[in-house]
């Protein structure tokens, strides 16, 4: 299956801003046997003085740009064609928590995919007693790790209400959980903290989600935004699985990965810094259309 993805992020500044510097993580990842980029383009307006492409610790593509001249508005446009294969099927069974702990204690791997990076804490993943209790109370800890992940995801989806007005990008997971409301970012952070409290390595995935058009309807441009979900490690035998707690589903071919990290701070699409005194308004639009 192939998709054409277009992302537009714009920042408008009330006061002209200068000396801007931004790190962008917006390009879908290349993942062997899963996701393949056939064409891609990142276009920035105004044209940056300097552009530098690199790869971060977790293997995500980072595009760094600088703008020294004053400007009122910055627009980032990314377009890519991505081919997707279904992830390897998840079969029931497999390692339990005991085997998982044993696998972890034997690991000396510091590479980007090592589960050891995902045990917590991280800037936005602080241990939380309420979330840990929720995890203990809703999961059968004697079950295989894959089952625990699905149990937890389902329980969380049931307990939380999707509400784009209850939280913002800076809300921490503890607050969102106590409100039982939030968006994909909150669902994902809460689930990661819950899994880590059980000793299951887990991390944050940013990406795009295909929104299916209503029967007979036409897909509207820009109704989608960048999405987030969770990746968890089920032991040396099974490795990583991805789960989308906002939609209570294991990840299949509807999800396109942009970046892997520990939490949102590792993968934020735009990390920026500029010299400006005024307020800033950001907007984002995504279109993910099926090619074939």
């Amino acid at each position, binding site marked *: 299956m192939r998709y054409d993805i277009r992302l537009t992020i714009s920042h408008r500044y009330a006061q002209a801003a200068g000396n801007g*510097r931004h790190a962008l993580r917006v390009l879908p990842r290349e993942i062997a046997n899963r996701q393949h980029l056939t064409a891609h383009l990142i276009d920035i307006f105004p044209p940056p003085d300097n552009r530098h492409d690199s790869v971060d610790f977790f293997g995500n593509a980072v595009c*760094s740009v*600088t703008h020294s001249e004053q400007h009122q508005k910055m627009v980032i446009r990314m377009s890519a064609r991505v081919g997707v294969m279904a992830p390897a099927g998840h079969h029931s069974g497999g390692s339990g928590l005991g085997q998982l702990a044993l696998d972890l204690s034997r690991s000396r791997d*510091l590479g980007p995919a090592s589960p050891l990076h995902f*045990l917590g804490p991280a800037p936005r993943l602080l241990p939380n007693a309420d979330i840990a209790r929720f995890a203990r109370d809703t999961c059968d800890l004697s079950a295989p790790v894959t089952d625990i992940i699905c149990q937890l995801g389902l329980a969380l989806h049931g307990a939380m209400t999707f509400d784009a007005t209850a939280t913002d990008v800076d809300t921490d997971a503890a607050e969102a959980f106590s409100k039982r409301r939030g968006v994909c970012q909150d669902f994902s952070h809460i689930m990661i903290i819950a899994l880590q409290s059980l000793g299951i390595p887990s991390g944050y995935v940013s990406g795009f989600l295909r929104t299916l058009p209503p029967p007979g309807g036409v897909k509207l441009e820009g109704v989608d935004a960048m999405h987030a979900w969770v990746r968890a490690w089920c032991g040396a035998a099974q490795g990583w699985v991805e789960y989308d707690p906002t939609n209570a589903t294991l990840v299949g071919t509807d999800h396109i990965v942009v970046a892997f990290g520990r939490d949102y701070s590792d993968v934020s699409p735009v*990390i920026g*810094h500029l010299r400006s005194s005024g307020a800033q308004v950001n907007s984002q639009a995504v279109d993910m259309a099926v090619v074939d």
Partner: protein
Amino acid sequence: MQKSPTSQTQSAPRDLLTAYRQQAGARDEMVDKAGNVKPVWQPFLDHLQGLGDQDIAHRFARGNQYLHDAGVRFRQYNDTASEDRDWPLSPVPVILDQDEFERISEGLIQRAELLDYVLRDLYGPAELVSSGQLPATLLTQNPAWLRPMVGVEPASGHFLNLLSFEIGRGPDGKWWVISDLVEAPSTAGFAIENRVAMTKVFPNFFTSANIQRIAGFFRDFQQQLFELRGKSDGQIALLSPGQGNQNYAEHAYIARYLGLLLVEGEDLIVQDGNVMVRTVAGPKPVSVIWNRIPSALTDPLALDQTSLIGTPGLVDALARQRVNMVNSIGAAVLETRALMAFLPKIARQHFGEALKLPNIATWWCGEQSKRDHVIANRDRMIVGSAFSTEPMMADTQTASPQEAGKMTELLNRSGRELVGQEVITLSTTPTYEYGALVARPMCIRLFVARTPQGWQVMPGGYARVSAGDDATAFAMQRGGKVADVWITGGNTVETPSLLVSGSGSTQRLSARAALPSRAADNLFWLGRYVERAEHNMRLFRACFARINDGGNPDAPLLRYLRDHLMGGVAASSGAMAATFESPLEQALVAARRIGDRFSPDGMMALHDLVATTDGLKNRHVPLEDIPKEISVLLRKITGFAGLVHENMYRSDGWRFLSVGISLERASNMAHLLAKLLSPDAPDGALDLALEIGDSVVSYRARFSILADPVAVADMLGVDDQNPRSIRYHLSRAKWHISDLPGQSSSHVLSEVARKTLLLETQLAASTPAELTPKVLLKIQRDIWSIADALTQAHLV
């Protein structure tokens, strides 16, 4: 080599030592187990003994006064606020024998090598992890291990250049390393100030005793910074978190002492991978950064995104090896407490020999056998976070359940995140309390630098001495004190030059030292605020002089003065004093932000002004005394101006300060004349203008006894010789501005120079009669626009 010309007696001075009690189970630095004073202490004790109580008190006060005057402070925090406190010097030194110091030095140098090796590995191949010598989670769960720095090789090849260690002596007499301080080894600069203070306390003793000097250490470290700069002509900067940081005074001090450029994160920008400092002459390259900001906060793009004190792009510059960092970003991972559990083994593996100076015995509870050991020995262990970088015994967060069951549960649940550390009883050292010497627990901080001649240990340092018997109360926050450390004996020390003469001046950083825009901005505002305060003092004095002469506070002239020249302030003396108090306080804030560029004398003068003003406001001053008191203030503020003119080096910084003063004075005078020359102004307004303009005498000499509006406008507006006139100060401003960087390179005038010249010319070509209130207000607005243009050109 030690000479004791007068007294050969080995007996302890009775009266000072009568109360001296060694603590049970602990060693003492001054007396041995049998209670005899150690030979290395004897000459000092004899000297102290020879002084009377009064003399001692007097000398100690002199040391404290020195530190106070030099601006050596530390910041004390409580729940809601912080305040600057005097540096808590304990004037009794800790004295170590040269041979013992040599042994300690060998151990510390070995440890510095070891730490450099470990750091290189942890940010490089990580063989210590893959070979099983270090558990992987000590990195992967450690907030101090900064992933963006993995694979980044320092341009110089050196990860570490300056370290400090806290060491303590256990009951067996051996020294132990308590903590490794590598991130931003703080307060090395205060070791110098401590030492200078001690020479004020014991001047005669210093000239005769064979005490190792510490200045050479700094000279050699400075040399290392120059080596790191290599052939580039970039600046060597000391990067500080800024005025809000508890150690800012020390940053300013050491920058001034070593001739480094003191910068904050916002002073630096990264352009195409190169680090530049924003100066009044545009961006200038930086080659070496001595960093005093916590690593994670140095780059809000690559590291902690919440940091407000960093420089975006700094990590990128490091990755491209465009700048040298002392020490490398991410070095704090070495301070991880759990590392102490593994360093002894790593040392044997790496050097083929044991640590010469052991560190406090530490067990990482991620392994079953170590957990068992900690539980079995829990009565002499503290259990705490494996990742904390605080020394365990100073860490108030440590909670160790003593009950075996609870401890086992805790360790089994989260052993990977915990360590057990053996409690050591530290040695004691004398402090002077209420006329006698008392034994208090202490530990010593020593500094190790990489120099062109290899690693060097500063032959001195400072001891932190506990406030009570409790060895955990070291923190100055909890009343602990700081004592100088003397290394004596051994070879006769080199010439007793205490302050490094020539350090920082022998090797000029550049012909015209770069002035960061932020520092220039603060100097400019310092000048403006001080001048504004003076102007308002004059208004205040004029007002009260009239009231004292029997004037009614509500007389038309005084009411007019308050309403039109003092912003409609109430008639009370307190409210009116606030008009100069608040600019003085703002001046102080600006001065504090440029600690390295503003002299301690100037700082003292400002403090004095604020204190005097405070006194005037907060106590009841009889009406008739107010003009007298305000005259004192005016004399002091004139003294401050004198300091600027007589003592400040004619640098760009001085120019910005002077432009600030001139533009503020010209602007205030334009406003004053606009109001007092107005047809609406009550009787006596012209005399008032002359008085505030300090021009009564010269006016009478030139004109008549009666004030005439045109003559007043002549004298205070267009006169080119009167240092109170608008024109005089525009000429001064023009002259300073023409000397600023980038101003003289072209025949095309800059915006700011053009505006100043136009306005000066307008005044020069005006007849006094043309200076109507309307024209004067326009002149004031033009002066403001000069200030804006100056800011745009040099300060943002």
